[in-house]
């Protein structure tokens, strides 16, 4: 699904991602783990080109999504980002109503008919398992929701533009355990229809919900394997040290 080939990323003179080659399978949850500053979020952000806006970033190598080079000159970022949705660390709904938050993307991408939007909003909120909680308060401000609900709203907002891939950048680290649990369950469920790539600080979370795990250290991929294998029988000494809590 996603093929990364010999990717290098520099922030100015700092070599942040070193020679990364990785393939990410379709309709699976892939977790990126590793200590802070290891490059896992940076790599995640190359997948929807969110690093483009940062001054001084230089990228070499190739990232292909379904055979299409996303850094090719004729690739439009807007089209790419429609296919690759993203959920952030902090819930960041727009200061608008719940309905308008979900309808926002489809509207700006040209969907105008109310019936159609209603349908998208309901479908997306259902997919983010938020519909039952908000169906009667769709006109209320999104900021009146709890943190966990806001995060699920952000997931619904991302799903509303019908992506194939969903990137989750430590999406539960600002939430309480119960909300975290809900998002984790939701992530498992979404992986039936979406390819999910998540960055997490929490190794247990990776072990609980991902199918594949990639361990990063100092801008390099140390090990990428099925989650079970990586956690029970790591091939690299450094992976073992990290998952057994000897550093990081």
């Amino acid at each position, binding site marked *: 699904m996603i093929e990364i080939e010999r990717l290098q990323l520099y922030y100015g003179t700092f070599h942040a991602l070193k020679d990364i080659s990785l393939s990410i399978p379709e309709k699976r949850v892939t977790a990126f783990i590793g200590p802070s500053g290891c490059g896992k979020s940076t790599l995640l952000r190359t997948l929807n080109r969110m690093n483009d806006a940062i001054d001084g970033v230089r990228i070499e190598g190739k990232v292909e999504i379904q055979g299409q080079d996303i850094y090719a000159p004729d690739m439009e970022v807007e089209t*790419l980002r429609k296919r690759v949705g993203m959920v952030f660390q902090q819930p960041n709904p727009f*200061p608008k109503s719940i309905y308008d938050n979900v309808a926002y993307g489809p509207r700006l991408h040209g969907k105008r008919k109310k019936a159609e939007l209603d349908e998208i909003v309901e479908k997306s909120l259902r997919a983010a398992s938020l519909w039952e909680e908000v169906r009667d308060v769709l006109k209320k401000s999104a*900021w009146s929701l709890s943190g966990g609900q806001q995060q699920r709203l952000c997931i619904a*907002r991302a799903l509303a533009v019908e992506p194939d891939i969903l990137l989750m950048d430590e999406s539960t680290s600002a939430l309480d355990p119960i909300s975290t649990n809900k998002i984790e369950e939701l992530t498992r469920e979404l992986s039936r229809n979406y390819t999910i790539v998540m960055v997490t600080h929490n190794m247990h979370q990776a072990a609980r919900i991902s199918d594949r795990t990639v361990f990063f250290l100092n801008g390099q991929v140390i090990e990428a394997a099925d989650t079970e294998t990586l956690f029970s029988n790591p091939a690299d000494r450094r992976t073992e040290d990290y998952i057994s809590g000897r550093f990081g």
Partner: protein
Amino acid sequence: MKAKTVDRIATGVIVAIAVLILAVLAGLLGYLLVRGLRHISFDFLTSPPQTIKAGGGIGPQLFNSLFLLVLTMIITIPLGLGAGIYMSEYAKENRFTAFVRLIVEVLSSFPSIVIGLFGLLVIVNRFGLGFSLLSGALALTVFNLPMMVRITEQSLRSVPREQKEAGLALGISRWRTITQVMLPVALPSIVTGTILAAGRVFGEAAALLFTAGMSSPRLDFTDWNPLSPTSPLNPLRPAETLAVHIWKINSEGLAPDAPEIAAGASAVLVITVLLFNLGARWFGRLLYRKLTASK
């Protein structure tokens, strides 16, 4: 000395300074209002001034001030918004933008009388716009634009990065993200800043002496054709504003009640600027609540 004593003395000094500032402000305002309020009446606010007789009003001047403000804002707001958006969202951090920023700083601390002279030489004479509302509005634009740019830039910069990224990550273009996601969030502080800047423009005199002029033609308030020379809406007629009128009447007023008129006009000016300030806060809060709650 014990720490407690030191603390008490420091607190006393700070409170004394605060009280002193408040007292100066209250005294100033009180003096202006006590002297001026007596002369404010409907007639005073609407009738034209008299040259040698007593009993003149400030009607045309008040109108001129407001009209000039509107004209200035029509020119300043789009320019300021555009430049502010550029500076905060598009400009790369390099020598050129640092230089532009420096120029903006310098321009905003420019003495307004210098801007007035610049207006006289360039706008009034070179461009041949003469003493007119338009010349005045252009001079005030020079005076006001730096502030407008800074207000926009800072308001946009204070929009949380998460909001911007939320827009971009949905595949919305950069321009759309700025106008549809960031501007609504930044709008309350832009509006507040703009109204405050408007207050400054409203009270400006020095930049207008040589641009909008120190006289007003006889205005016919029934003539709303902007091309007719006696129409109040004609942007090419000279127009003495309230602040300029106060200055003029104090320095060369011939009417026997000139001091009273100046006092009344000053009170009107101060009250209006005060209203601008209070209005800005109220409107900013209202907008914030409107924009962050459901529609």
